[in-house]
């Protein structure tokens, strides 16, 4: 009796298991989704942050584009030089000379410089604050609520004591998420070689701009006159706009700026380490 039960159950369970095993073997061979092992390999090599900086959605999509030859390894902005070179070596293609892109925050009107006309008390979020205009007298400047910092997936941004976002030169991979997040388009993406920037977006005429911020561009056009490269700086809707076609150099252009809103080669000064040290120092001082 006991033996019989054991035999019946062993045979029936074994039968079911065998049937399922046959089905699984069949499914494995017939229904398998064929993937290019190269895609998996490349995806593993890529940073895996899915930042979208290359222009396609996600790292595996970029890997597919690489194999199809639609993109060059240099398109990956987050990976850095090593990853790009490794991939180029693996695929046997040119790395693609793409210079490093960096985010630049083009407003220096923090709480110390910009006139505060009202207190913004609504939802703490730049896009929401932009609807009513925020609290600053300048409606073109940084709202200072940090939507760009929240958008950064690489820990490459922070808010300084002056209420302005800063980009860490050593950490920024140039994915452009912060530029997309900014409702006032203050953050722009520039190649590393660009060193001269006008840190103001105020489109008002000089006197009006000066009234709301001490570091506003007042469109005096001194920088355009002083610039070594002729025609590199032009006035457009009351702001100085820099053409990077021929390198505008920059040593001279910044010299006579009355509000010091055009600056040369200051982006590289902010690194994460220095920023954090400065933050700590500030805490110690105030605490």
């Amino acid at each position, binding site marked *: 009796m006991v033996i019989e039960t054991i035999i019946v159950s062993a045979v029936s369970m074994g039968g079911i298991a065998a049937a399922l095993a046959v089905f699984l073997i069949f499914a494995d061979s017939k229904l398998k989704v064929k993937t290019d092992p190269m895609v998996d390999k490349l995806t593993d090599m890529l940073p895996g942050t899915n930042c979208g900086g290359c222009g396609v959605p996600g790292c595996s999509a970029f890997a597919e584009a690489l194999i199809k030859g639609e993109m060059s390894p240099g398109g990956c902005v987050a990976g850095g030089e090593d990853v790009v070179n490794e991939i180029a070596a693996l695929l046997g293609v040119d790395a693609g000379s793409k210079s490093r892109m960096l985010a630049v925050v083009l407003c220096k009107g923090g709480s110390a410089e910009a006139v505060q*006309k*009202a*207190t*913004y*008390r*609504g*939802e703490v*979020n730049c*896009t*929401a604050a*932009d*609807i*009513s*205009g*925020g*609290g600053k*007298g300048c*409606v073109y400047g940084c709202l200072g609520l940090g939507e760009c910092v929240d958008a950064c997936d690489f820990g490459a941004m922070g808010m300084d004591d002056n209420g302005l976002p800063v980009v860490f030169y050593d950490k920024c991979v140039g994915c452009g998420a912060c530029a997309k997040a900014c409702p006032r388009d203050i953050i722009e993406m520039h190649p590393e070689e660009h060193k001269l920037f006008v840190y103001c977006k105020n*489109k*008002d*005429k000089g006197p009006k701009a000066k009234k709301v911020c001490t570091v506003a561009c007042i469109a005096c056009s001194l920088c355009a006159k002083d610039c070594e490269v002729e025609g590199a700086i032009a006035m457009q809707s009351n702001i100085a706009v820099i053409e990077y076609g021929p390198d505008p150099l920059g040593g001279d252009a910044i010299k006579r700026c009355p509000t010091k809103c055009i600056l040369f080669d200051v982006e590289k000064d902010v690194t994460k380490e220095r920023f954090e040290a400065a933050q700590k120092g500030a805490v110690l001082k105030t605490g």
Partner: protein
Amino acid sequence: MGLKTFDRGIHPAYNKELASSKAITPAALPKTVIIPLRQHAGAPCTALVKKGDVVEEGQKIADVEAFVSAPIHASISGKVKEIDLYQHPVGMKVPSIVITGDGEKKDWGTSGGVTVDLASLTPDAIRTTIRESGIVGMGGAGFPTAVKLNAPKGKKIDTIVLNGCECEPYLTADHRIMLEEADKVVWGMRALMKGVGAPNGFIGIEDNKKDAIEAIKLALGPSCTDIKVIELETKYPQGAEKMLIKAALNRKVPKGKLPLDVGVVVNNVGTAAAIFDALNYGKPLIERVVTVSGNGIKEPKNLLCRIGTTFEEIIKQCGGLKEGGEFEVLNGGPMMGIAQMQLDVPVIKGTSGITALMGEVIKPKKYDACIRCASCVEACPMALMPYRLGDYGNMQRLDDFNGWGGFDCIECGCCSYVCPSKRPLLQWIRLGKLRVRQNQQAQQEQAQLAEQASAK
């Protein structure tokens, strides 16, 4: 049986007594006016004058060819000082014409009574005059009135509804217009009915304005059969177009459609009075009644202000802001108004009130997690689910936001008002709408770029 009304909605504190007994008084003639080129829904105008030009009161100074638009007129006579970007009361900087006045007032003869026989006017003439006078909906949204009256072919408008609800707390401008200019309102109403060929007219008034109901009934006379006054329950947002149609006619405007699709055109009582002035005296829309009220204003008033007068100047004429503390100054009432960050913004055609609040009511409140009580769902007059829409808007889940009807939201603010966790639901929904629109714009631009690239 109770009074007619719509489903759901809320009963906020109305605080109308602050200004409801104050007669409409003309404000002092402003020395300079800032007239934004965007004062209506639709295409913004382009300036017809340039810096240094001398303009007359009522002269057309900006216009645009587009169908959905309304021209803009000089509200004072004087010289064009500049055309530059100025802060707009609805946010952002907008190109505006600044006029320095010469201190002279034009006499439009507005106390002369009826000068035109309505029967002699053709519907086309009525519509043209309304368009040329720059008349837009004066309840706040500023939709060009002439466009409303131009029903597309195949659509028959059988009813004009005049909106005298004024459900927004604090505001009393429409109330005073109905009391003081009832004859103008009724005449303007008949002109509107003639303009679209609608046989029926309804004037919807909330029952907290009994004296206005009496005044309008008196102006209509006992033998009037085509226009009816409907007494509506006092409830917010009774004055929203779709709510008013439901309450007055029991017709439901389908999702995504306009009142036109159910044969109705809704206009504000202020618009009707402006139409009277335009048709009888040729006076374009250059001034409007603005209620200045709120607990931060020394003497609440109903002022007849020129378009382009700054808030600062108007508040000064009402005794100024009270001493001490912080203020929240709104363009409009507390439910739908937009907070201003500076006071040198101008009154535009859609500014029905300026509300200055202070003290406890404007203290920032911390919000808590949603407790799923569904108070917002019970309050939403559009039968949406604000707790979901708010989260979708805030978290950028824009497909879900669209799918759950985010764009049907009329931004009345009932959800934020009732939320026990004080969640800023409406603000998040507005964010969602803004982001969806931005995305659409970006996509269009990309498509255009792609087209250009392929054309090459």
